[in-house]
């Protein structure tokens, strides 16, 4: 390809000029690609972390920093009422947690004992055994699923602990399952306690009176969770006879991921705009340098025409030169963006979340190629047309 060869030679002969012209493109594409890599990895790590959360559930608990916290507390009787009166609510189970000393033989530690139901709110993978069954819940069985942390502390020798008994105070629980080792990091929120027991057992053993800390609701239609949350809170306020000033908080997967996604969309838009502005500026730079290059090479263009070059052939030559210039800038920016995004990814995000997202090479290539192409077409057309339409006599006479 002689056009490419000649364009490379021209760009190589003016290295500093080529470099300066491409800086804008490098910066623009760098910004867009690095944020693409980071966004990709953040989104991946969030969905990886929250993927275990049930889609059809939400949790409601009274706001903790208000004076009549006591009056606001949800009662056991409210739950049956809500299932009966609020449409779309399928089940309602109490959620509770408390810190206790747990023992196994001579090993012990303080852990949070929490109630859970079947299927669990966070369906995390298990290393040993299984979650408790519907029968365990119905009968209020003394069974527990323990976290990896608790397993390591209570069973330092390792091995399968299912069937072993652990003690919370004087109460004995049989271990039926061990959760897999969680990924490191802040985003890997521990949604349950370290020792999960059936909520029926929890209520029987630890709930004194009628009050529960929080409740988990499952719905029939997951698409209207926000509306259902509002309906349930209204119902709780009626039943508790508290004003609208008393706050209840909700937690569900869609709202949580939605918030984080919104944040990222915002960042992506800002960086995208910076990228777009720098690409426009860079494109004008490319156009400018192409015009200079054509002016310098007027005689050369005249000669080419005199020895038989057609309009289209001159056009192709300068188009390819502009494309090469744009391409060098865009792909350098892409390489730097991937490197920077990958570095930040492995230095921070992987450390925080334990999640390694694949680098989105294909998206990066497509974005970069699109930038290079659009840049060439928008800013390379005029200079190339100008070169192609030069009058050979004038061009040959040009000093």
């Amino acid at each position, binding site marked *: 390809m002689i056009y490419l060869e000649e364009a490379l030679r021209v760009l190589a002969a003016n290295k500093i000029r080529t470099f300066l012209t491409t800086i804008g493109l490098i910066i623009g594409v760098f910004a867009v690609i690095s944020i693409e890599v980071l966004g990709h990895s953040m989104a991946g790590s969030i969905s990886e972390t929250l993927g275990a959360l049930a889609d059809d559930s939400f949790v409601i608990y009274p706001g903790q920093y208000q004076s009549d916290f006591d009056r606001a507390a949800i009662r056991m009787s409210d739950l049956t009422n809500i299932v009966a009166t609020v449409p779309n609510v399928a089940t309602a189970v109490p959620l509770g947690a408390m810190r206790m000393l747990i023992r196994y033989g001579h090993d012990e530690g303080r852990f949070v004992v929490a109630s859970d139901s079947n299927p669990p709110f966070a369906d995390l993978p298990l290393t040993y055994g299984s979650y408790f069954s519907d029968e365990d819940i119905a009968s209020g069985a003394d069974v527990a699923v323990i976290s990896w942390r608790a397993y390591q502390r209570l069973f330092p020798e390792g091995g399968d602990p299912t069937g072993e008994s652990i003690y919370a105070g004087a109460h004995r629980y049989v271990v039926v399952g061990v959760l897999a080792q969680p990924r490191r990091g802040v985003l890997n929120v521990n949604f349950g306690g370290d020792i999960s027991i059936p909520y029926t057992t929890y209520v029987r053993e630890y709930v004194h009176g009628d009050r529960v800390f929080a409740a988990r609701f499952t719905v029939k239609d997951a698409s209207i969770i926000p509306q259902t949350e509002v309906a349930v809170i209204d119902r709780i306020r009626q039943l508790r006879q508290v004003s609208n000033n008393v706050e209840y908080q909700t937690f569900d997967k869609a709202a949580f991921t939605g918030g984080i996604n919104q944040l990222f969309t915002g960042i992506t838009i800002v960086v995208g705009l910076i990228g777009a502005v720098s690409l426009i500026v860079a494109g004008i730079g490319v156009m400018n340098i192409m015009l200079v290059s054509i002016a310098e090479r007027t005689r050369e263009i005249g000669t*080419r*025409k005199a020895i*038989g070059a057609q309009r289209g052939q001159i056009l192709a030559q300068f188009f390819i030169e502009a494309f090469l210039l744009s391409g060098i800038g865009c792909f350098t920016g892409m390489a730097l963006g991937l490197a920077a995004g990958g570095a930040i990814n492995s230095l921070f995000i992987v450390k925080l979340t334990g999640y390694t997202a694949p680098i989105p090479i294909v998206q990066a290539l497509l974005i970069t190629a699109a930038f290079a192409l659009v840049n060439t077409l928008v800013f390379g057309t005029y200079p190339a047309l100008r070169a192609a339409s030069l009058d050979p006599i004038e061009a040959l006479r040009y000093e």
Partner: protein
Amino acid sequence: MSDAAVAIDLAAIAKTYKMGSLEVEALRGIDLRVGRGEYVAIMGPSGSGKSTLMNIIGCLDRPTRGTYHLDGTNALAAIRLRKLGFVFQGFNLLARTDALKNVALPLFYAGVAARERNRRALAVLQEVGLADRAHHKPSELSGGQQQRVAIARALINDPSVLLADEPTGNLDTKTSTELMALFDQLHSGGRTIIMVTHDENIARNARRVVRLLDGLVISDDRSEYEQAGGSKVL
């Protein structure tokens, strides 16, 4: 002169330039026939119209009036360009490209494949005596060698006519003499050569001298060729 033997046939060619409201008549009716294998020098002081005539013969410009036939056809400029080889005063080689690729460039524009381009370029470089300099860049060649490369480039399409505009203008006397020897050699090989020059010594090498003044042919003299004792008569 039979039609088949005519390379260039100009009839009543006129060219008028408009410079603002002023009309400048560069050519005022030129009749000129050049036969195949002729070696013609076009002479004249500056402003006589010889450059304009050259541009019209070279199909770089169109006459205002008159007809121009090249090889008996009145074809499109794009096709005619392939029948012409240009040699410029300033050589006009691509600076960063080696001799072989410079010579091969017209074939690229004509759509010839790379292998064939290189083969033919090397053959033409051989013809001008520069085969051993094929991979030198213009900056590594002397002025005379650069002009030989330019001539090779002009010859590669096997043109009907070789057009040289002040080919020795940038060369010293010794190199000019060598270049004229090359033109002689090409001429005896059957090439048609038209050369514009203002140098009498250079024009003397041609077998026919056409002199222009104020856009008209004032003399068309084959005698210098006959004095040189040549044998070819048209």
